[in-house]
């Protein structure tokens, strides 16, 4: 039994595996497969100021080794979350990252003000949703720093900022979040992608494009996590196409303190549990006593 505990964002994560936002709702469904306390943490569904119905029509389609996803942030709104979901999640003996999404600064700040009155332990600021209209803040350094700073000034809670991969300079963007006062960065969100049905000449998704996720994006995510981890001094939460303990360990060696597992859970509902157990086994097999030894342990050429 290696020590898998990682301390980031002011909290102990009993293992470095967190369920990522968007595939896991508020935990109530997958809890019927395994107890949430087995996880290092979970990020909630991206929650907005008001209830959102989300995108019309078909919202998911498979691609080689991946999938395209466009939910359009369907969620019940922050008030419902605070009243009905957060109290339940706080009983689960795992770290809850409240994922917050909005289309402008005022909305972000209103959500943050509401959360500040609660016991929500950690905020994951989603500035990169690929399925909202308009350009997300996460695509430029200046807007990333501006929104991070604005939120930082309104909350004492630990804050991680979820970054967009749809940029050319992820290291600079991560630095901008750090400069704005983020305690960590989470990356990557889904890559913007598209698929067309050649028989109907229509995009498969009613939203035309969507977030491209799954094993196919793992090498891209890994490279971006490595660049971001090299650029900043704050912890990095590595996300993107992780479907095995080997993927998770690669992310950690690239510099991620924790990893977030996403749509791998669609194929295998026990994926995060297997990843945790296999990381432990790998550490034992390789004489690693503490998972922290592996963070950023890659020896680049």
């Amino acid at each position, binding site marked *: 039994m290696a020590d898998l505990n990682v301390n980031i964002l002011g909290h102990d994560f009993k293992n470095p595996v967190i369920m990522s936002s968007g595939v896991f709702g508020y935990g109530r*469904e997958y809890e019927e*497969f395994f107890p949430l306390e087995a996880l290092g943490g979970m990020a909630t569904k991206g929650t907005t100021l008001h209830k959102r119905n989300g995108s*019309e029509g*078909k*919202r*998911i389609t498979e691609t080689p080794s991946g*999938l395209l996803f466009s939910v359009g942030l*369907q969620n019940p709104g922050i008030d419902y979350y605070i009243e009905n979901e957060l109290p339940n999640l706080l009983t689960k003996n795992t770290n809850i990252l409240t994922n917050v999404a909005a289309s402008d600064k005022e909305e972000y700040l209103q959500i943050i003000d509401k959360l500040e009155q609660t016991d929500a332990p950690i905020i994951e600021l989603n500035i990169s949703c690929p399925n909202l209209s308009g350009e997300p803040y996460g695509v430029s350094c200046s807007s990333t720093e501006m929104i991070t700073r604005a939120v930082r000034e309104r909350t004492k809670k630990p804050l991680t900022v979820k970054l967009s991969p749809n940029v050319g300079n992820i290291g600079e963007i991560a630095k901008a979040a750090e400069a704005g006062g983020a305690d960590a960065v989470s990356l990557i969100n889904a890559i913007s992608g598209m698929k067309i049905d050649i028989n109907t000449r229509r995009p498969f998704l009613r939203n035309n494009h969507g977030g491209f996720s799954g094993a196919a994006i793992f090498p891209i995510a890994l490279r971006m996590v490595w660049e971001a981890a090299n650029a900043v001094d704050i912890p990095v939460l590595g996300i993107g196409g992780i479907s095995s303990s080997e993927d998770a360990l690669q992310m950690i060696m690239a510099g991620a303190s924790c990893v977030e597992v996403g749509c791998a859970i669609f194929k295998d509902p026990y994926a995060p549990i297997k990843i945790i157990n296999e990381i432990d086994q790998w550490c034992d097999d390789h004489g690693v006593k503490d998972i922290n030894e592996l963070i950023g342990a890659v020896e680049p050429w």
Partner: protein
Amino acid sequence: MKERIEMKYTQGFYPIIGKENLSRDIFSLTICCHEISSLAVPGQFVHIALPGHSLRRPISISSIDREAHTIRIIFAVKGTGTKDLSCLNVGNTIDIVGPLGNGFTLLGKDKKVILIGGGIGTPPMAAMASYYGENAHVISGFRDKTMVILQDEFKRYTPNTYVCTEDGSEGIKGFVTMPLEELLKKEHFDMVYACGPIPMLKAVAQVTERYDTPCEVSMEQHMGCGIGACLVCTCKIKTEHGIDFRHVCKNGPVFDAREVEWNG
């Protein structure tokens, strides 16, 4: 000692013990899975993982044999996933999460009901016909006679079966709503159950509403998790607060036809 927590959902690998090719692109697999057969009710589905695919495929359960510990699924080859599913054979195991979703509301077996299946929406009606026996009137609609399936099975349960084909190559030429309306005109039915393409379900919903007969429809949508976490399989439902986006996997796949927003 820690209390053992009963989990509502399970995932497992189960042996395929029977396979049939029912028509051109339609296959039937019989799977031995006590955990699923002991819990499943008609109208529920199983979520099947296939090597090389990132998403599971939701397939409705067409029959349940609690004594033999088996379920049967019937599916059409439509894309790469169902193609790979059709290549599995007796002796292979299959990765299933299930049973999922809400099944049809079962009334007393003495109630008179109409079961309507359109194309590959026909299979779930086999379990329903087995339950209601001769109190069921089974209407099946297909594009043409090469697509017709399950009629011998329905006839084992009830003498009241009707086949419609769009081109008239077998049975009644026309849509399932023709015999449906004839039946509703003649006598009282306690419930109509339907599964098939959206335009058919919409037409069935309109007819049953006109005759003030309760109707349940089974909806289909592309799915992610299959349990209500990922929110991709939407269905628009009328509520007192307006239209709400519900999810086929968790809130359905069976809905009250009067609640479904059919336009858009």
